[in-house]
């Protein structure tokens, strides 16, 4: 069914020029404008921060194995959990899928040679690196102890840690993500190949479009919020200082205006990854394509109207709280639509038990729990009790780690042959997916119970009766860590020793599978002409 008319030389030819071997040396990488090379640069840099954030997470879990604060001082503990949060959110989760897999795939999926602004793309990586270096200096130079939320007036006046430097780092990381989002929006608007209409776009592209909208509209607000915070702390300008008439609660409004949509930056891309993988795993068109596509946009839009659900106990007005609560319940609907459509895609599919399938199933399980527990927190009467407890911690880890990190790892396994041109041992992929799934549940499920029992988050020492569940959580974390370390090992191994990957190892549909593994520098030898729908594994029947 050669409906995509193109002339790609078969890979039996002599070693082809691809994006990896058309130039060697550090300079060819550091000055590259190729979106695929920049994606690889991002993969390397976010992996470093993932490891660093993971290290801090391990320290937190070690400390919490006993109720007494016996491993480190309270001051150190506060810095450790703050830096875990800041590094994971701003330096890993936000760029995780968009800047790596998205950077690699969005131009290929729309049939373009590159993103619209390759130099801006490279600039975004450099800004990210500078942000990362500033963040690292802040960590090495004593750390920061405000939590990733930087609540005033603690952060602006009382904290004795490197708040300005860290806020600057987060500000720059945000700037980098604005540049990425801008590039995606323009590319998706203007660079689609002939025949690639909006409704033929892979759902991965739709979810990245929605993500980019949030990056463009939300990130500037966190930027200005951090600027206000830095001015207040640095110069004594009193934007949020109650002594000057400032309102500390206003900071929370501004902060969550970005940071709630930002959690959709940390989940929408993984939903896109899942849509691609579900279709391939079941070898079937995604059920209800338009509904899945529009649910991404609906999440992006509604996501901007719910920030006040972080503030039900903050003394915001009761009626504002009600509006935020009801819209939060509405956000649950598009997420439910996606889940049901993925389930329906599997119905009467042709399901294969390989690594991508294991990740899809793991993701579904964890995202279900993460999404459903959001209902508890959007309920005002219940959130009073659950706010700022381990219930919240468990909920957002299920979304961000169970969701986004699972999506990131799943996507890396799915497109690894395309990115590197090498295959990894499938059995190890399945083992790692299973370990991550089990370890994750053992780590975070007990935290739901802890939260309902009333254990507040960010506690260094805690009452004895919480210990058993905390120990269980820490044990789970060690399994989880193993699950994350194994792929690092066998994926690295595959780069050097892995068998050569075919162009389309999974038998998947999509332009990225029509080009070679790894793709040539300009992705396609000739601009593709698209004449079929997305995921057209066979003739499509309307129901």
């Amino acid at each position, binding site marked *: 069914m050669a409906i995509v008319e193109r002339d790609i030389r078969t890979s039996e030819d002599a070693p082809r020029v691809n994006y990896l071997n058309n130039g060697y040396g550090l300079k060819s990488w550091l000055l590259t404008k190729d979106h695929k090379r920049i994606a690889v640069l991002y993969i390397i840099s976010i992996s470093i921060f993932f490891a660093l954030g993971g290290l801090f997470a391990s320290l937190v879990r070690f400390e919490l194995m006993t109720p007494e604060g016996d491993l480190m001082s309270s001051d150190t503990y506060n810095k450790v959990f703050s830096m875990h949060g800041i590094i994971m959110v701003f330096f890993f989760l936000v760029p995780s899928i968009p800047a790596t897999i998205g950077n690699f795939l969005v131009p290929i999926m729309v049939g373009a040679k590159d993103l619209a602004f390759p130099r801006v793309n490279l600039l975004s990586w450099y800004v990210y690196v500078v942000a990362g270096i500033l963040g690292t200096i802040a960590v090495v130079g004593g750390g920061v102890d405000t939590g990733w939320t930087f609540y005033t007036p603690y952060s602006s006046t009382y904290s004795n840690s490197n708040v300005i430097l860290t806020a600057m780092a987060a500000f720059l990381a945000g700037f980098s993500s604005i540049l990425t989002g801008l590039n995606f929006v323009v590319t998706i608007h203007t660079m689609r190949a002939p025949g690639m209409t909006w409704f033929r776009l892979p759902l991965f592209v739709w979810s990245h479009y929605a993500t980019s909208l949030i990056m463009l509209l939300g990130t500037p607000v966190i930027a200005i919020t951090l600027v206000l915070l830095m001015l207040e702390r640095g110069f004594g300008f009193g*934007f949020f200082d109650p002594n000057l008439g400032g309102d500390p609660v206003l900071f929370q409004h501004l902060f969550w205006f970005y940071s709630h949509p930002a959690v959709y930056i940390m989940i929408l891309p993984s939903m896109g990854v899942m849509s691609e993988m579900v279709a391939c795993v079941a070898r079937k068109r995604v059920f209800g394509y338009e509904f899945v596509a529009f649910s991404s946009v609906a999440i992006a839009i509604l996501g901007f109207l719910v920030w006040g659900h972080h503030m039900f106990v903050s003394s915001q007005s009761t009626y504002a709280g009600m509006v935020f609560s009801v819209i939060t319940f509405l956000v649950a609907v598009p997420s439910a639509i996606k889940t049901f459509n993925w389930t329906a895609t599997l119905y009467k599919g042709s399901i294969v038990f390989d690594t991508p399938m294991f990740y899809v199933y793991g993701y579904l399980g964890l995202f279900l729990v993460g999404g459903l527990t959001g209902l508890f927190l959007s309920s005002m009467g219940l959130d009073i009790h659950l706010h700022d407890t381990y219930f919240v911690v468990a909920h957002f880890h299920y979304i961000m780690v169970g969701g986004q990190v699972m999506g990131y790892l799943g996507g890396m396994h799915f497109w690894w042959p395309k990115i590197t041109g090498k295959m990894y041992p499938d059995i190890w992929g399945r083992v790692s997916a299973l370990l991550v799934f089990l370890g994750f549940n053992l780590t975070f499920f007990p935290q739901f119970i802890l939260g309902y029992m009333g254990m507040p988050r960010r506690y260094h020492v805690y009452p004895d009766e919480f210990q058993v569940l905390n120990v269980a959580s820490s044990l789970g974390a060690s399994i989880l860590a193993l699950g994350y370390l194994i792929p690092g090992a066998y994926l690295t191994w595959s780069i050097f020793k892995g068998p050569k990957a075919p162009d389309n190892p999974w038998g998947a549909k999509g332009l990225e599978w029509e080009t070679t593994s790894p793709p040539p520098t300009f992705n396609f030898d000739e601009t593709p002409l698209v004449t079929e729908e997305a995921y057209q594994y066979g003739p499509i029947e309307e129901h």
Partner: protein
Amino acid sequence: MADHAAHRDHPHGLAHQFEDMPQQKESAVIGMWSFLITEILFFGGFFATYLIYRSYYPYAFFEGSSHLDILLGGINTAVLIVSSLTMAMAVHESHSGNKKRIMVYLILTGILGLTFLVIKYFEYSSKVEHGLVPGLVWHPHGEYSPQLALFFSLYFGMTGMHALHMVVGIGLLTWVFVKTAQGTYTAEYNAPIEIFGLYWHFVDIVWIFLFPLLYLLGTQGGH
């Protein structure tokens, strides 16, 4: 990388990732508009903060506003409006690729931009003299509202951020000017001038909002 594109029929100024000039220009314009939307939200955070505190403390804001120099602010407003005109003329000339005229209008725009910054400098130094910089030099004369500092925090935050955008704008203008002088832009390829013009107009418009909110508030004679 160039060898790929070289053997094609390749128009001047077309980047390798684009198919043709219209696609490139459309991308540049959509890109700049998207960027300006992020800028609107960035300043939007400032404006929201301003509006909330002004509704909390109308007296303090009235009092703060009457400390500002309307004459200097008004001159600066005029300077920026004229600079928008000269910038628009530069963009207009770029459509015919008249290198000399583009350069003249760009120079005029740059001079007006610098004038704005010089006047702003004098305004700032008079605020320092009068001890009206919260946190740094804060000793206003006589009785003053407890939230006066909040007004001046916002004044310096907002006008400072605007001035920073002006500085960036003048830097970009210099770059566009050099490129024009080198003859990079033609009647067909002039997107950089056009999108820089969008940026310049945006920065002017921000000031058009800042001027009444900060300066003219004090002329209303309170309530």
